[in-house]
């Protein structure tokens, strides 16, 4: 259950593009045609599935506070987490290079379709972001880390294929000249992100039930107005907090 939940959460609710804006640069640059978008999306899934578990191991056994205990009890106090940026990015850069070499050797056809995108991906923020969020969300096991990597990869894939399809169609509509290209892409992405926010309720059914209970406490008419106002306040606060969490 935990796995299913994390999987869907990383695809829809914490979608890399729409909720955290990761990998926007390549998302905007390579989304003019569906076919190239599919290629890049597939490459992102692949690389995320490799690097997130790998960086999880790195974090768990080398970087975290007390992670070096396996070397001996005297290493228990070491905290190398300040090195995580440099270690993660080095892992990603080398892995991408390695994957490129292996794919080229064993599957030339796959290399032809993914090949040109692989070097691009080393500096895609979605990849490093995947590892950094994996670290900050304290994902517990290697299996979950793999799950998270694949899930967020699929989320990114969905997003780029969807925007590419929209951009192919939008070419035939009369967009105001100043909005053409980049501007309209931003606004469409914004609208898609609003759509994806509706998935947010998927896993919070329990919270809504609690809220309703709260509302029933209202007692008399004159107090009602005040309570409503207060609730509004609470709601805006909650929204603000939620956005902070998301970001």
């Amino acid at each position, binding site marked *: 259950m935990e796995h299913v939940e994390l999987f869907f959460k990383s695809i829809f609710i914490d979608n890399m593009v*729409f*909720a*955290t*804006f*990761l*990998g*926007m*640069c390549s998302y*905007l*640059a390579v989304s003019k045609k569906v076919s190239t978008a599919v290629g890049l999306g597939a490459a992102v899934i692949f690389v995320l599935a490799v690097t997130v578990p790998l960086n999880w191991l790195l974090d768990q056994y080398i970087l975290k506070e007390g992670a070096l205990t396996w070397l001996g009890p005297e290493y228990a106090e070491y905290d190398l987490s*300040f*090195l*995580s*940026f*440099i270690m*993660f*990015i*080095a892992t990603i*850069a080398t892995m991408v290079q390695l994957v490129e070499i292996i794919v080229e050797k064993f599957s030339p056809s796959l290399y032809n379709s993914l090949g040109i995108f692989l*070097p691009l991906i*080393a*500096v*895609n*923020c979605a*990849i*490093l*972001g995947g590892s*950094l*969020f994996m*670290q*900050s969300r304290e994902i517990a096991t290697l299996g979950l880390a793999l799950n998270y990597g694949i899930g967020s990869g699929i989320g990114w894939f969905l997003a780029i294929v969807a925007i590419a399809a929209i951009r192919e169609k939008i*070419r035939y509509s009369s967009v*105001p*000249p*100043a*909005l*053409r*290209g*980049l*501007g*309209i*892409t*931003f*606004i469409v*992405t*914004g*609208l898609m*992100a*609003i759509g994806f*926010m509706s998935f947010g309720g998927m896993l919070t059914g329990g919270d809504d039930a609690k809220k309703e209970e709260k509302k029933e406490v209202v007692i008399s008419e004159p107090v009602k107005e005040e309570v409503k*106002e207060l609730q509004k*306040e609470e*709601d*805006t606060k909650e*929204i*603000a907090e939620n*956005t*902070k969490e*998301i*970001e």
Partner: protein
Amino acid sequence: MGLLSKKDAKLITDPFADNNPITIQVLGICSALAITAELKASLVMSISVLFVLGVGNVVISLMRNIIPSKIRIIVQLIVVATLVIIVDLVLKAFAYELSKTLGAFIGLIITNCIIMGRFEAFALGNGPWRSFLDGIGNALGYGVILIIVGFFRELLGAGTLFGIPVLGDPIEKTGLYAYGYENNGFMLLAPMALIVVGIIIWVQRSRNKALIEEH
């Protein structure tokens, strides 16, 4: 501008408008959108990028003749990562709360395309002084957009600027709220960042027709 020749001054002023890294070069979008719900976070992010890009450009430019071109990406990543670690540790030491809010996004400066983009496009082919100016100019252009977006999102979304209420008190109904004004909580949510940037691009391109794309 007595210090700078005309050509050098252009390096700083160009990225503000006609060659803005975010709205024209489409670089560094991720962080621009993710952390702009508050003006304070936008400002800190801009300063961090200013530091990393300014110093990084100089370092890369000084090393440009000894970096083998095949491994230049890795060298660049290491330089940026080191600078970003410095920024991260400084923030943790002096602005812990803020560094919590920014969270992973400080780390993501490493893969901010604006940095790699300027290294590749400018620092590898120019001397340290000009690279420094280019770095500062682009970071400022980036910061301007961040601050504009942060300004509107915080003002309309929470009625505050830098956390200080400017439109009156929404609970006690003072200031604008006395006339029935309400905060638009939607502005604080992620999608509005995209739409605000979209509108900035729209305004900019309507003013300068030369920037309009064919399709």
